[in-house]
Structure formats: C-alpha cells, structure tokens
C-alpha cells in the first residue's frame, strides 16, 4: 500500500490541474468575500465586512466551494488512472486489490480534507487580517464547528471515492460532483425537521447554519444580527457517529465492488 501511495504522490507532483484548482478556489473565496463587502458598502454600512459576519452568513457556501477541491483531488487520485488504464498495471504488479483501493482512498481522504480545510480557512484569515472578526459571533464556537466539520468532509470524500471507483472516470465524477455541490446544498435546507446528519452535505449545512437572531432599529430600519454558534453535545454525537458509520460504509462498499470487478 505504501508503494502505491508513494507512486500517487509522485504523480500528483506532476499534475498541473490540481494546483490550478486549488489556487482558483482560493481566489474565488477571496473575491466572494470582498465582493460581499462591496455589497455591504452599497447598503450604507461604512465598515469592511467583518470576518465573523461573513462566515456566519455564508458558512455553507464557503464549505461547498472548498469541497470542490476535495472532489477534484479524489477524482484525480482514484479515477485518473482508470481512464488510461494505467491502474491495471498496479494490480498486475502484484498488489492486492485491497492495497490499490485503500492506498488511493487514504491519500484522497487526507489530501482532500487538508486541502478543503485550508480553503475554508483562507477567506477567514484574509478577513481577520484585513478587518476584524467582529462581535456578531463567537470565534471559539466557530472554531469548534470548523474542527467538527472534518467528520462530514471525510465522509463526503469516502462517498466520492466510492463513486469514482464505480464510474472509473475522473472527469465524469468531477462534473457531476460540481453540479451536486453547487446546487445540491439547497435541497436539504428546504426541508425542515429532517435529520441533517444523515446526508453529508446537509450535515455540513447544519454545522454552518448559525442560528441568527436579529433585532432592528427604528431609525433607518437597520438590522442588527447576532449569531448563536454554540453547538450542543446532543448535536455533536449523532453528527460524528453518522459520519463515521456512513463514511466507513461507503468506503467498504467501494472496496467490495472493486474487489470483484473485472477491469477490461
């Protein structure tokens, strides 16, 4: 397994696409955030958008954009070698299917998660340096949620791994995945009362859905928003458990499928 991982990492260094995607996403995140402040300026507020407010209002957009990286990364690692069939040679070199599968899966999970977390954090860092965090939302609580989001992210990556080994085409998975990420986030939020933890994306959406409380002023009808970011233990445990269970399940499903698959 280690050998497969080493080979993948070597190949990754030579791959331009993934770096382009990474940089592009970072840039998009920044422009989104700065774009937000422009909007804010137009509505009469004269202060640069506070990083806290940006995160509170756009949490799920930040994450779903960042997930595009995880998607691309996973699709390339797990799928690119299937397109030109170079993956066949790994099996024929005497690696067990288990190694081929999990070697790739592990790199996808680690690389995808790290990359996604970095891209998520980036606009916040920029915002905190340029402006301030602000009072609307507690930094510590957001930090907790940020760290907790590792679980649904890993789970989503496991699902991508499963999908890629199924479809065996990196580009199809990427296209489908991007569409799902950009539009699919809306669907779970339309239904209230569901157990959001069950779908990876909705679990993330719920994590980043800060309960907002707003009051307003008589003069100028200004809205003042505060966010409650505290997450209760009762919410954390199902989230973590379900993420682990389903992540593991999809990973194993992919493995079981791949184990008996004819590679022609």
């Amino acid at each position, binding site marked *: 397994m280690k050998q497969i991982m080493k080979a993948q990492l070597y190949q990754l260094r030579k791959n331009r696409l993934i770096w382009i995607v990474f940089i592009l996403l970072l840039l998009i995140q920044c422009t989104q955030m700065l774009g937000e402040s422009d909007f804010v300026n137009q509505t009469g507020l004269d202060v640069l958008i506070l990083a806290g407010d940006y995160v509170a209002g756009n949490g799920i957009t930040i994450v779903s954009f960042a997930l595009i990286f995880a998607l691309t990364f996973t699709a390339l690692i797990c799928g690119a070698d299937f397109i030109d069939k170079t993956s066949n040679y790994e099996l024929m070199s005497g690696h067990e299917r288990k190694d081929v599968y999990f070697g790739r899966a592990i790199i996808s999970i680690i690389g995808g998660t790290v990359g996604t977390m970095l891209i998520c954090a980036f606009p916040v860092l920029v915002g905190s340096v340029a402006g301030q965090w602000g009072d609307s939302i507690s930094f510590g609580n957001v930090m907790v949620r940020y760290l907790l989001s590792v679980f649904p992210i890993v789970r989503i990556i496991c699902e991508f791994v499963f999908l890629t080994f199924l479809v065996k085409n990196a580009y199809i998975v990427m296209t489908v995945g991007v569409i799902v990420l950009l539009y699919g986030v809306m669907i779970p939020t339309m239904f209230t*009362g*569901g157990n959001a933890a069950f*779908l990876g994306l909705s679990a993330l959406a719920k994590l980043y859905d800060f309960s907002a409380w707003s*009051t307003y*002023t*008589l003069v100028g009808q200004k809205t003042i928003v505060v966010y409650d970011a505290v997450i209760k233990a009762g919410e954390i445990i199902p989230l973590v458990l379900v993420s682990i269970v*389903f992540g593991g399940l999809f990973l194993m499903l992919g493995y*079981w499928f791949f184990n008996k698959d*004819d590679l022609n």
Partner: protein
Amino acid sequence: MSYGDIGLIVLELLVAGGLFWLASYAEKALSTKWKLCYTIPMILCIFAIALFGFEVSMLGVYLGALCMLAGFMKEEKRLRRVSAMAAGVLTVISLGVCMINPEYRTPDYVEEFKESFSQLKLHYNMAEHKNIDWDTLYEEYLPQFQKADKEHDEKANALAWELFVQEFHDCHVSYMEKKEDILNGALERIAGNDYGLSLMTLENGKTVAVNVETDSLVYQAGIRNGTVITAWDGVEIKEAIDAYNRDNKFRIHAFAVKENEDFYRAMLVAGTGGDSVNISYLDDAGTEKTVLAGKLGNYKKRLEDTVDVIDQGVAITNLAWQNIDDETALMRMRFMSYDKEENFDQMSEEVRTKLLVLKDRGVKHLIFDMRSNSGGSDEYVKALIKLIAPEGEHTYAYDGVFDKKTMRYLKDENTGRYLVGERECYQGENLWGHGDITILVNTNTVSAGDHFSMLASAFPNVTIMGFTHSSCSAQGINSVQTGHSFLAYSSVLLLNEDGSVFIDTDETREATVPLDIKIPFDERAVAALFDDGEDYVLSYVMSLIEK
C-alpha cells in the same frame, strides 16, 4: 402519515420488486455492475431520513434496505430473492406500525417548550419591566407540557402555550399553530359550556346578560340583553366573578392593561358549570328569579361573537373614507398596510389630498376608526401622523442601544435605566389645524396602532375615545418557530427620551396610552349593540361631536 414516509414506502416496495426480478437476470448477465442496484434502497433511506427525519415506526423500512445490501455483497440469486422478499415484508409491516402507532411523528412538546423558553428568556426585552419570574413560570408550566407530550395531545400543548403566553400580559407575546383547528380545539376545552348567554359588567357595577340566544331556555324564561344577573350556579354574581378570576388563569386573551382585562371580567363566568346551571336574575318587575339552564354546546363561539360585537369597527375597507354627515368624515384604519410595495409616500399623498379636499368642503370633524388595528410598520405611522401633527419637529421614539457581545440592550449603570440611542422624528404638516380629530380604540388596538394613538394624543385637537384603553403593547417583535407553530414575543426595544420604556405597561399594568374619553358601557350601550346591532361607539362619538 407524512408524504415523505409514504413516498419512501412505495419506492422501497417497487425497488424491492425490481431487485427480486434482477436477481435472476443478473445471474445470467454475470456483469459485476448489477450489484450496485442493491445499494439503491439504502441510498433512498439515507435521503429520506435526511430530508424528513428519522422515525422509529419506519424502522422496518430501514432494516429492509439494509437487508438488500446483502445482495450487493454476495451475488447469489437465492440470497437476493430472499432478501428482497424480506425487505418487502418488513416495509409492509412498517406501514402498519406507522398507521397504528400513536407516537408516529409527534413533536416533542417538552423539548419545544424548553427550547422556546430559553429563547424567550434570552431575548424577551420586557422581562424586567414587567417583572417576569422565569423560574416560577418554568416550574408551573413544564408539567403541563410534559403531560401533553406523554399523551401526544396537540391541543393540550396548544392550551398550555396559550395560558403560558397570557402570563406575560403583553399583547405582543402570542402563540399560533399552523393548523388553526388545533388552537381552536384547545380553546374550546377551556371555554366551557354555552348556556345561551354571555355576561358583561356595566359601568355601574351590575352584571348583565348580553348576546342572549333567542332560541333557548333562558330566553324563554325572560332573560334578555341587559337583564341583570344576580347569581350564577348558586353563587352570588360578584362572588362568582371574583372566584372565577381568582381560581383561573385563562382570560379571553392576553391583556397588558389591567383595566382592559377587568372590562371583560364577567365574560368567562358564563361558560362555567355542569350540564345545567341555575341562573338567578331580576325580571322586569325587579323580582329575583332563577332558571335552570341546560348547556347548548361549547361556549367558545358565543364568547367570540360577543367580543366581536363589542369590538366592532366600521365595516368598510382599510383606508376607506365614509362621510358621516356634512361636517364629519371617518377613515377606517384596520391594518397598517398600504400596498405590497409599502409605498407609504404615495399613501401620504393620497391622504393629504383627501384631507385638503375635505377641508375645502367644510368638514371639521375627523374620525380615525382604529378599533382592532393590529399594527404594522412605523413607516406607516409616520406617513400618516405627520399630516395631522402640528408644525415643527416631533419625536416619535428612541432606539435602545444593543450590545452584540452580551446580546442585551445596555443600561445606564447609575440610573438603572436603559441607555437611549438614536431618535426617530418627523415633521408635522398640521393639515387639520382648523378642526378636531377623534381616534377610536379598543382592547385590540395594538402595536403600531398604539404608536399612532400615543403620538396623536399629544396633539391639542386629538381626542382618544373608546370603551377601553388601547392594548399598550408596542415593542418590536421576533419569533421562535417549531415545525407546527410559532411563538412571537417582544424583543426590539423602543424608549422614551428619559430611557423609560415606550408605551408598554410595567407590572402595575396601568395604561400608558391616554384614553381621553372613556365611553361608558351601560344599559344603552348593551341595548344598542345587542338589540339594535348599532355601532354604539360611533353613535356616542357623534353625539358628543354634535354638542
């Protein structure tokens, strides 16, 4: 049953059938890709749970989906067929369970109460002003919610909420169910029995029958609108009324002003009693008589009808004008909304023009009928009030100063009063300086209706009239929602110049919005309202104007 669950059950049955057939097809095909189909049930379940929520009764469906996963792992025809059948059977069983199980998808009322309570405690801005004892309230009401939850009684839940919100004595704290019949059903439980009449206490202290049902025993016995009632169910009437109000928390709705609440003090007594009650009354000759009245049904309808009659406003559309006579014009202000775009400038213009036209015509007396005005936007208030205000700048009210960190409105440490923020004001145009304005209010004139009355009462040519004060609940509101209901409460602070609370009553529950002339609720009022169907308030006002 929820649509999501029905959909899932139907889909799972179809898929199980398909997979049953697939078992034999796949055997001939021997392509490994078919095994993927056996993950479809599980994926459907994941989506269903994520979108509609996990439900114990549906466990059969979920387990069936897991069963089918076996078909993915082992490509054996018999195993797949057996698991498909098992899944089908489990799904049908689950369907049965869902239909019978009383606990199927019932909300957790206790959880909802706790959640809403904590939100309320955190954000309700009149807690100190009204001296709300959170702990006592919690202790008193939690058991009621626990009982409602245990019995899965949605109406008991709604009733508990209704009683709870009334404890705040704030017309801006209210509870609504998405399905109307739940709250209606709840109120019916507490309204009591209908014996064919309602009760109101007159200005002179006598309690009389009102809204008497013509087709009833009491009517046959001689009780009419205005008949003095002396005893109810064997208890002297004053005693009975005091006893009811002492022993029961339920009022016809929340009242911020004690006087307003007392106005309707007798009303609910008319619903108390068993299958029949002894009603003692004075006949035409003044002799006390008693009639045994049997219950006709539920009191809620009669109760609401009676209150409607007392509260009625002129039945014309919002912002429509009616010429009462050559010198008097009336405008009805039932809702504080103009159009969808909230084009208040346009509304101002229209009213301004109308006023000038009326002025030209020689109209001297204006009546703004704001009875049961449910409030709305302060922009609306400003748009109209500036037309009638004397020239110069007027203060509307002051904002509080909100601190995001503590999520509280700040107070001055020395005086203990709220810190005063920015000032909202408007410019008066004094378009009616030549004449007088009467504003009609009732207990349901609330929110921006209170704002309007409060601001206008300061003008020299404005008189506020009604049977009672307006409701005196005027802070800005927020709400907490559950899947089936929502709870509104005051949260946006409005202040006077000295940092005292704008309009809302404190624990003394004394009215803050002035009532310049309190129209007496007497025998004439009763006769006019209930016998003649007359708009007594308007008639009274007209009689005053004519003088």
